[in-house]
């Protein structure tokens, strides 16, 4: 996983709510068996509309997506995270996220930042007024900063540590292999196996 400490970049406002993972990456793209090439499928249907915000050249190169509430609802497809990252996003800011999407993001090093709805709106308005506005997302300080504004966000210490170190969860769990083996010895005897 790519480590995340602090990121400064420009942002793009996505003024839509309930941006489900079917919109982020339509199902037809899920047939791939590799982990790469998903940027082409990001918001594939919406990008066909020339007025869609990602087609606006003034937001070219943006690395922070600022969305309406309930971003990443629906399907568990991690391809949505891969698509956003491969397109160039490092951070998504919204008032609420789908639980599975949020979880998937933190496994991959895409930072989901929850801000109060009115702060999200303020940031969207600021970016619309100045698409080249520099926005800093500081995971160490748990802050989003732009144009003199400083807004705090919450993230648990453990996830923050894992993200800043870029640690692989599997490696961390395998350190506790003895605990897993001990647990397995005590499992209820009637539990099913698939064999």
């Amino acid at each position, binding site marked *: 996983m790519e480590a995340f400490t602090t990121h400064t970049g420009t942002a793009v406002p996505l003024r839509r709510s309930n941006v489900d993972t079917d919109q982020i990456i339509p*199902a037809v793209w899920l*047939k791939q068996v590799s982990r790469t090439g998903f940027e082409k499928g990001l918001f594939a249907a919406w990008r066909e509309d020339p007025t869609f915000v990602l087609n606006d050249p003034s937001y070219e190169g943006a690395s922070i997506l600022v969305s309406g*509430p309930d971003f990443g609802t629906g399907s568990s497809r991690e391809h949505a995270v891969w698509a956003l990252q491969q397109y160039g996003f490092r951070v998504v800011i919204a008032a609420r996220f789908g639980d599975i999407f949020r979880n998937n993001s933190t496994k991959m090093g895409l930072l989901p930042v929850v801000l109060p709805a009115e702060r999200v709106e303020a940031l969207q308005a600021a970016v619309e007024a100045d698409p080249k506005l520099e926005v800093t997302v500081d995971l160490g300080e748990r802050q989003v900063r732009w144009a003199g504004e400083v807004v705090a966000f919450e993230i648990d210490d453990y996830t923050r540590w894992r993200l800043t170190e870029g640690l692989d*969860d599997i490696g961390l769990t395998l350190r506790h292999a003895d605990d*897993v083996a001990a647990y397995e010895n005590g499992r209820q005897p009637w539990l099913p*196996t*698939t064999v």
Partner: protein
Amino acid sequence: MILKEEIMGRTLAEKVWEQHVVRRAEGEPDLLYIDLHLIHEVTSPQAFDGLRLAGRKVRRPDLTIATEDHNVPTLLGPISDPVSKTQVETLRKNAAEFGIRLHPMGDAGQGVVHIIGPQFGLTQPGMTIVCGDSHTSTHGAFGGIAFGIGTSEVEHVLATQTLPAYRPKTMAIEVSGELPAGVTAKDLILAIIAEIGTGGGQGYIVEYRGEAVRKLSMEGRMTVCNMSIEAGARAGMIAPDETTFAYLKGRPHAPEGEAWDQAVEYWTSLRTDDDAVFDKVVHIDASTLTPYVTWGTNPGQGLPLGESVPDPESFADPVARSAAERALEYMGLRAGTPLREIEVDTVFVGSCTNGRIEDLRSAAEILRGRQVTTRTLIVPGSMMVKRQAEEEGLHEVFKAAGAEWREAGCSMCLGMNPDTLKPGERSASTSNRNFEGRQGKGGRTHLVSPQVAAATAVTGRLTAPADL
């Protein structure tokens, strides 16, 4: 055996969670043991690649089962799409390499992953079950904690049989009263989602409780728990009871003899204590419900079938208003149009939400002796469901009515196989998501119960069975 001391005042979710904690440390998520890992072809290939890259094995292939469902065609014959074919073949290679039981296309046990687990008796009360699929919440109907995960977590479970996770908060949805005749589990869950919204369950495990829930069959309970994720909740669950035990008894992987008795004794303890406190409680009166249908592009945008397409101006919240405006534009609907006047091009009965035998029976009951006037796909959720339906002669009813009787798979629920809507086409669908383009690019979806789907197939517009 790690049987925790009986502590007063715990919810069902807390009991099941505690039973599965492998390791707990201050400031860290719990390490949770996973009793059953379900695999399908779409979300697993990159996870198996990750294992190979790191030289890791699958820790418990004996707690893992795979099936082919999302890509499979529902007409007999090989997969014509080369990309789909590669994905399915990749699963076959991975299952063989890592020693995982697989039910491939054509196998008598093949079917939608959330249909076959319960049918085999692999889904049991008190278990933790995961799958790289958000509708894993279905399995919570048996009183376990079951939730969808992404591909990184699939890899984690394959390698370790555990997941690090923080315990979600708990929500009770208390459904009092009785569902009126003709109102189904699907209508209940659509009404719940309309009530609490697509974000209402975020951060919670939902326990569905109350008289109306107790009276649901296991299949109805699965329909309700299946769509928990559409209310934002990763997991939904229902305490096991006699209905649960009766469903399980005698299934291939259910315990037998003394083990059955032991299991039932434990399962009986899996209920929320009377003095337990939920973080949130929602009340729904089942007796006031009528058939529900969605009009928009998220599952929370639903109304009773007797209502009309809402006016976006009627929403006080500006976010809901703009979402409604956008939804009406996408759906090609005008505010004020009675929902019953909406004409559809296609009816789809199937999916992990409503592709079980009871769903097919209730659709057949309505189609018996009638003719469909629109393209109607009846897709059993598994080959076992298909066989049972054919033994009962339901396929003859569907065919006589002019509906298409298909092979098992996810089919038009998400259109990864050839079953899709064309741009602008409109469906009445028993599936779970009405997202833009979900059933095919530009397609428009109205979520309904199997009964409403069947009645709609007869008239060509959204219809309740009582209207026929």
